[in-house]
């Protein structure tokens, strides 16, 4: 998986490209820890080019959401594919995130 992180003003955009499986989740752990520090503002997870999400990926999303709740920011999940949306629905996490097309 490839990720790029851009910060402008109060918004941190994380573009995630490829499969967010267990291995990828471990690879991006360090970068995502830096993103957690930005959750006092808005974090946008751009998933337009994400092709798969595993439980480890869901855990990354949940951690960010928890941090944002503590720090008073928000996490927006943007442009998820129908397959990934189904994963969120099947696990009951769909209504937990602000999902935008």
């Amino acid at each position, binding site marked *: 998986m490839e990720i790029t992180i851009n910060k402008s003003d109060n918004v941190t955009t994380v573009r995630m490209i490829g499969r967010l499986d267990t291995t990828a989740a471990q690879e991006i752990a360090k970068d995502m820890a830096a993103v957690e520090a930005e959750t006092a503002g808005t974090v946008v997870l751009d998933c337009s080019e994400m092709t798969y999400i595993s439980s480890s990926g869901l855990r990354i999303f949940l951690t960010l959401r928890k941090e944002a709740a503590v720090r008073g920011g928000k996490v927006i999940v943007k442009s998820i594919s129908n397959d990934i949306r189904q*994963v969120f629905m099947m696990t009951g996490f769909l209504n937990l995130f602000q999902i935008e097309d």
Partner: protein
Amino acid sequence: MLLDPHSQAILEEYRTDLPFFKEKSEELTRKVRDFLASAGIIVAAIESRVKTEASLSGKLDLKGNKYSSLADITDIIGMRVITFYIDDVDKVASALERLFDVDWENSVDKRKVHEIDSFGYLSLHYICRIPDSRYRFEVQMRTVLQHAWANMNHDTGYKSGVEVPREYLRNLNRLAGMLELVDEQFSQIRMDLTDYRRRVRALVASGNLDEVPLDGDTFKSFLALHPFDQLNRRIASVNQAEIHEQSFMPFLKVFKDLGCKTLGDISSIIRDCSEGAYQIACYQIGLTDLDIISSTIGPQDLCIAYILIQGGGKAGIKYLFDLLNGPAPSNESMAEMLVEQAGNLPFMNQ
């Protein structure tokens, strides 16, 4: 203002000790605020002030001879605790009795000074000793409504020296009587509500769920019974998944929209649709390696199963997703997929 030498000496004392009063005013307010918070007494406001030099000079000019020293003046620091409910005035008073040494001789309960046919200023005034000091301070305790009345009365100007026409004073006093009634009603409503919650908890505990109307309070009592735990554990066991705890409150509106009038109605859905909900979850996650689920998966799949059993079809499921996740075009395609999947499951073919 030209004061006599005795009053002038008292004023000098005030000037010297003003920093002490300012510091103590903040410290005492903080102490009261912290104590009330720890005792769970919610108040509308706590305010305090140190008497200004101008105000003290005015007081000394009027009755300076009454005081032998500054320590005789008990309202250099004045605090006011404003409560929402009339019963809480006495609770605040009890808190102050625990916190400070109360000078009973100079404290006054203005709520008790009225004759049976008079209405007006109602407030409880305590004079308390500032710990480790020769000075005292005053605390006024009253409700928001009593506070509003006192401010209006003050504005009418009993201190201004201008005589106010009798009809205005009469109107103001009529209002005092009415506010007394309103304060009592607020307390009554709070008591009734507490009673209602107690009765609901008892009904829920005894299992008489059909008698409990569904609302925010009763739903919370119901949740204390962990009604979705069994289903969630069953779903989690499919993949030995971790259950991520989430609030069930968004489902209150969903159950209401599904026609549930009582907790018994939700209980019936759990009884009749748990197998269907399990089959849906099993079909969806059984062939994946997803090992984390939200605790809301149980009620979500229960509602899906209920809608499908009732014949609500794609439109019903889309409506559910609109309610839970907010309206989105993808809700329709997800609803379509679910109806198709469920069509092959045993609970839809019995």
